[in-house]
């Protein structure tokens, strides 16, 4: 059972210390977010809020996830580092592979690629990447990604990408774990083809259904017995670990703890954040590990 702490939309001058504290108190990983810019008007519906509106304001910080991960890698030694969630089809596969491979090399193989297909059409328009068929393109990007990560000369002929032999260097020693975000049927099928699924918040019964679907898909792919991570976002305010135990029994293997900014209206000072990490570890991480 793993706990991950998000440091999304958090003050830039606190990120490093918070990641170090998270490592110290026993979190398995630290996650960061990904958005390029916020358009003044967003027509796209945000799929993870009830009213379809994004939670964040235009001036809230979204540093580049991989540059931030490189800095965090330099300042921590054990925690794993992952974007929650990196929007692959906003990019082309070469820049993605270069950033992720560099992060993996610099961190000593502590990087997880948390990837999704995105939802904000406006962002795709800004960077002139097609929004339509972004799921299929994501699949092909991941194929190209795996090829480039071999470090060998590789070529590719596909629907979206075609190239003669090229070689990327450096590449990490270990294969980079790919976990897929989103809870549409297509996202679950995609996740089953990789190393894990990353969700948001659910009732335990909903999670059971999702886990069953994921398992079916994996069995159909002949991957039913391979390791697979099921991560959901959950923030318990109870004084005991019961809630987390229920989700664990429903099939969760990792919990993603939301950033302070999304825990209601309250403002958190640095000291309050530190205290919250310590309390969280005492209440949940330690008991769940026992």
């Amino acid at each position: 059972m793993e706990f991950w702490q998000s440091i999304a939309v958090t003050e830039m001058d606190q990120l490093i210390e918070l990641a170090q504290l998270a490592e110290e108190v026993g979190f398995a990983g630290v996650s960061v977010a990904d958005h390029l810019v916020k358009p003044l008007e967003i027509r796209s519906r945000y799929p993870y809020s009830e009213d379809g509106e994004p939670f964040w304001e235009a001036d809230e910080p979204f540093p580049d996830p991989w540059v931030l991960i490189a800095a965090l890698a330099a300042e921590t030694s054990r925690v794993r580092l992952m974007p929650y969630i990196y929007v692959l089809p906003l990019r082309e596969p070469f820049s993605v592979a270069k950033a992720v491979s560099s992060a993996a090399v610099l961190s000593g193989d502590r990087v997880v690629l948390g990837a999704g297909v995105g939802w904000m059409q406006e962002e795709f328009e800004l960077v002139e990447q097609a929004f339509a068929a972004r799921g299929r393109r994501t699949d092909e990007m991941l194929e190209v990604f795996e090829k480039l990560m071999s470090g060998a000369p590789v070529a590719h002929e596909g629907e979206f990408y075609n190239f003669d032999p090229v070689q990327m260097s450096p590449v990490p020693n270990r294969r980079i774990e790919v976990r897929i975000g989103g809870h549409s049927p297509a996202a679950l099928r995609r996740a089953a083809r990789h190393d894990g699924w990353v969700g948001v918040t659910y009732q335990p019964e909903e999670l059971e259904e999702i886990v069953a679907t994921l398992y079916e898909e994996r069995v159909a792919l002949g991957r039913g017995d391979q390791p697979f991570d099921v991560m959901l976002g959950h923030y318990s305010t109870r004084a005991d670990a019961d809630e987390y135990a229920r989700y664990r029994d429903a099939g969760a293997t990792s919990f993603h703890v939301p950033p302070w900014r999304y825990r209601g209206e309250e403002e958190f000072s640095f000291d309050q954040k530190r205290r919250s990490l310590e309390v969280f570890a005492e209440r949940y991480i330690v008991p769940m590990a026992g």
Partner: protein
Amino acid sequence: MQFWQSIARTPTDQIVPLARHAEALGFTGVTMADHLVMPVTMKSSYPYAGGGRGATDQGTPYLDPWLLCAYVARKTESLRFLPYVYVPALRDPFSVAKSISTTALLTGDRLLVGIGVGWMEEEFALVDRPFAGRGRRTDELMAVVDELLSGQMVEHHGEHYDFGPVQMAPVPRQAPPVLVGGHSPVALRRAAKARGWLGVSYDLDAVFPILEAIRVLRSELGRSDEPFEAAVALNARPEPEDLLRLEEAGLTMWVNPVRVRRDGTPPSLDERRAALDRVAERLIVPLGG
């Protein structure tokens, strides 16, 4: 005179010790390169023969320059960082601005941004961006980056980029200086409009006419009093007097290139450190750098 050390193509495990060594010896900063992948067969020819031996061999390590800056910055105190050079036209302006702003913040404003228009046509084809017209596109792209780095709600309606109001966060208090690489007349003009020029490796005598051309361009642009950096590497090992003459002519940064052994193999960490020690002894100390 500022002394800069190239850490391009350095094996990953040698980078931090080398950067720390450079910092301790009084080097101002380190430079690194930018390549996504190496094509196995390349029709484009590297235009800067001399400094480029081994630059385009497959398997030569090129870490992402921004990640490298952010990582090494956290392992050093005052060392500065300069991609030499990054090719914005391989990307979109939003990703470029995001990389620059995040790196500037995480290095504690120890970042300078070196850009070029690029020369490897194959790389442009891979990322599906046009090679032709990349100079003009780079100019507009960097103008957009400037707007985004203001941190304000901005819109842009230009030839290559056209978008309604968007806002980027976080941004550094001050955008890092942009220095421009290349020595074609158009590159020199682009540099003269920016905060500095980045040359490659030249014979000593070849540098003076370039610095003079830049001086004239900047004077024509009415920018003679603006802060300006000029950087080169030299084909032959310079004497202190050489650097003093260049400094008088407007050079502000001398770059110690990556050395490769005669057989083309990369030097060991000890050999690299010893090479830096010699630079410190022969140039940095005498020139009070």
